[in-house]
């Protein structure tokens, strides 16, 4: 996953804001990178562009080597569902579906509707330590458990990259650490690129690389102290 000299302007007229000003970034398989910066620095905009949810005003985005410029919305959606897993700050689980169905839906949108999909969803839940909660509904799960279900949904389709937007901000320290541990394991053991947007310094030790962004520009990059334990 690669962004080359990406710029993004949001809004119109007087509300026009240049959220990104020539950002270049790449995410390799097997690494957990953190994108840190203050509010309004462009973290989430960059994440959205890398995840092909937003298109850049200028610059190039490549997913698995494929440039996204000029692609039709449905082709972009296909690229997204086959290559990118998302984890959101507010989990965005389906309250009417149980855990296994919340995970399975990521396969369902890809057309995988057989019993294998159920087995894969259960396996993904087992990966995040929730094999005992497959039939639980989101409202009966704690925040940490909901986020684990969201992680399972992100990884079940075996995407090459996982993009997480503030995955620990709604969680207490213990749960936040546990979630980051899971993400780090996924990056290392499943050789996926994981990009975590956060301004939570407590999770820095889990990162292989820390990218700092301010005012729409990358202002620094450092190697993290990645740890699994």
């Amino acid at each position: 996953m690669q962004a080359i000299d990406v710029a993004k302007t949001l809004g119109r007229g007087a509300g026009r804001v240049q959220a990104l000003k020539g950002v270049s970034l790449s995410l390799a398989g097997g690494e957990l990178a953190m994108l840190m910066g203050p509010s309004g620095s462009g973290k989430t905009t960059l994440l959205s562009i890398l995840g092909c949810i937003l298109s850049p005003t200028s610059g190039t985005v490549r997913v698995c080597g494929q440039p996204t410029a000029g692609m039709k919305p449905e082709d972009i959606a296909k690229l997204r569902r086959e290559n990118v897993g998302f984890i959101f700050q507010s989990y965005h689980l389906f309250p009417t579906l149980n855990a296994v169905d919340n995970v399975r839906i990521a396969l369902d949108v890809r057309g995988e509707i057989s019993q294998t999909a159920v087995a894969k969803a259960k396996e993904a839940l087992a990966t995040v330590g929730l094999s005992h909660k497959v039939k639980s509904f989101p409202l009966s799960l704690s925040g940490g458990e909901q986020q684990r279900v969201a992680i399972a949904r992100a990884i079940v389709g075996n995407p090459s990259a996982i993009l997480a937007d503030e995955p620990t901000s709604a969680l207490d320290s213990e749960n936040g650490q546990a979630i980051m541990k899971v993400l780090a394991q996924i990056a290392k053991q499943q050789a996926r690129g994981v990009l975590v947007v956060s301004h939570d310094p407590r999770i820095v030790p889990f990162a292989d690389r820390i990218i700092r962004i301010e005012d729409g520009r990358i202002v620094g990059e450092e190697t993290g102290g990645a740890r699994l334990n």
Partner: protein
Amino acid sequence: MSLIFKLAWRNLVYDRLRFVATLTGIVFSIVLVTVQMGLFMSFERMVSEMIDHAAADLWIVPLGTKCFEDPSLVDERQRFRALSVAGVTEALPVVIGFAQWRLPTSGTTPVFIVGSDTRGGALRPWNVVEGNADDLATPGAVVIDQTYFDRLGTKGLGAGAEIRDQKAEVVAVTKGIRAFTTTPYVFTSLDRARAYVGTPPDKASYFLVRLAPNADAEIIRNRLRRILTDSEVLTTAEFRRRSESFWLFGTGAGAALFAGALLGLIVGTVIVAQTLYSSTKDHINEFATLRAIGSSASYIYKVIIHQAILSAAVGFFIAAAIGLKIVDATADSALPVVITPVMSLGLFALTVVMCVLSAIAAIVQVMRIDPAVVFTR
């Protein structure tokens, strides 16, 4: 179970109160349409019932006849001319017309007399549940339908009556022979009918033409048309269509029924559309999440369409149960609601179409979803 189906169903029942409101809208709409269409079917049957039960290959009717109940007359000479055409075996007279039935208390009520040569079997009463229609050959005998006992102030079989100041006696009772005009039919012999209605002996309302086996009805009809004057020659199907057209559309009765049905459909569509729209709005984050995780637009449309179809199916099931109760309750009334299997299938299709059309507003809303909202909510 398909996840689309499950998601659609769970979205629907998630807010039970709203689901009940949706179902109420659909049920109200479909019951209204069912009743209107049921009445239309019933009227359509009633309008052509006499024509369909007459043993005729062709009808000789007065020129310009609009329906079976049209009181115009045709001259007896036409009958003899018809009988002169090769292939015509019989031309049986039928006399119809309004008369006054004297009530046992006081006053009179209008009845519609149907008289024919009972031995020839031109237009005999059917569905006889009491007595014997053959007894119409006895003087003053009449056959009435049990639906109209109260209206005619009679207890049925064996009861005496007075029509146009002439004695009559109920010799048989039928079930389900009801008139579109709500004026009770009274079957009698040809002579009595002439007496009750005041038709001269050299006139009749219709002549029912019967053809020899293997005779070509079209050729004979053309021959009859050439030799008959002041009359028309119609096939049963033509006469039925003409009657239906007059009563259902010429009088505006059919249009009123259709207007009621259309109103029901509009109300139902608006209610379902409003509910699906607000349901979609409530679940907009979930649809945005679906879009963000890469679902195609068609996947989301399918969820909404499934919601619409599920609403339609449940709503129709309840409406059908109510409809059957109405059919049962009105079966013996003067104005029965008729539902046929074909009509039921049509109504189900109509319900589905109505609900799917209602989903358009919700789909338009979903088309505007920006998946990026998942990062801000």
